[in-house]
């Protein structure tokens, strides 16, 4: 599948702001798509599309903060940069508490916005790379047999083959064979690498 290009999505009800942001972003060599309202954006938004969102706080109908909450409900991870001409501290705090990447008050310098957009794109790229990495680990985990999975869990807890054999009621030789299969299927070069893989896919507290 061909990778989608990183895109800066702009949602603002003001035509002039949308046009000037589109020009600014294009002049910086960034792909840009604009929408005049939150529903228009939601109708076209594909979470698989990498990028970031530049979002006006105050819009008629669904506000920017409401759009952010809707995206959160949908599990979207796109970094959101809020822009507003009428920002106050409670509004900024609410946006940041809900996971906004940044909150910028108008008027701002072009470079200020571009710097933040670049940082947001970098974070999105980093997140997607991490996600691909954990997806690959999960795919490999799915190829293990139930017994191999048991061996994996025990050896990554730090247990020696002899202890694993005792826990599972099998011979040490059998554990060694299962362990070799686990290393091969997981494409791990060492036990340390295997442990790192399991930590990467472990649920966070």
């Amino acid at each position, binding site marked *: 599948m061909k990778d989608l290009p990183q895109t800066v999505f702009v949602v603002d009800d003001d035509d002039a702001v949308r046009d000037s942001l589109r020009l600014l972003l294009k002049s910086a060599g960034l792909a840009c798509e604009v929408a005049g309202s939150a529903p228009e954006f939601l109708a076209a938004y594909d979470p698989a599309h990498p990028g970031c969102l530049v979002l006006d706080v105050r819009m008629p109908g669904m506000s920017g903060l409401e759009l952010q909450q809707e995206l959160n409900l949908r599990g979207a991870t796109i970094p959101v940069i809020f822009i507003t001409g009428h920002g106050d501290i409670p509004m900024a705090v609410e946006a940041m508490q809900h996971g906004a990447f940044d*909150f910028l008050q108008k008027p701002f310098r072009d470079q200020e916005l571009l710097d933040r957009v670049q940082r947001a794109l970098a974070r999105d790229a980093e997140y997607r790379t991490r996600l691909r990495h954990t997806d690959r680990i999960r795919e490999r985990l799915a190829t293990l047999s139930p017994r191999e999975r048991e061996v994996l869990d025990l050896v990554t807890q730090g247990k020696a083959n002899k202890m694993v054999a005792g826990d599972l009621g099998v011979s040490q030789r059998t554990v060694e064979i299962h362990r070799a299969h686990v290393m091969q299927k997981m494409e791990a070069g060492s036990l340390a690498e295997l442990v790192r893989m399991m930590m990467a896919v472990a649920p966070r507290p």
Partner: protein
Amino acid sequence: MAGPDEIDGGAANGGGTRRARTVIVAGQSSNRTREVLRALRGFHSVIWPKSLEAALEWTGTADVACLVIADDLREEPVDEFLREARELHRNLPIFVITDPDDVAEAVSAMRHGATAVIEIPPSYAALREEVARALQ
């Protein structure tokens, strides 16, 4: 651990004990810090450590309910102090006090790990509510 200035360690809020949960206030000696300390009168145990190092050490003690960064800190920028406190204590509620309408400072504090930012004046009530929630 350096000795803190405990300004309200008594039973002013319902006859508690010395092991009541503690609110740490960090900030240089300034009118704003004193205002914040006054606003928190009535809470069981509010301490104002004499140094950042002491404040960070106190955040690691078991009975600490929250940290309030009341004002600039002479030894270190607030954001840096916040980052350190957050690294050490992932779940500790940390409230930052800012001047009214300083949105940029508020956003920066949130990015560095503040739980909430409260502008003072006018909102001592908001601060007391946040601290009361943290104490629960």
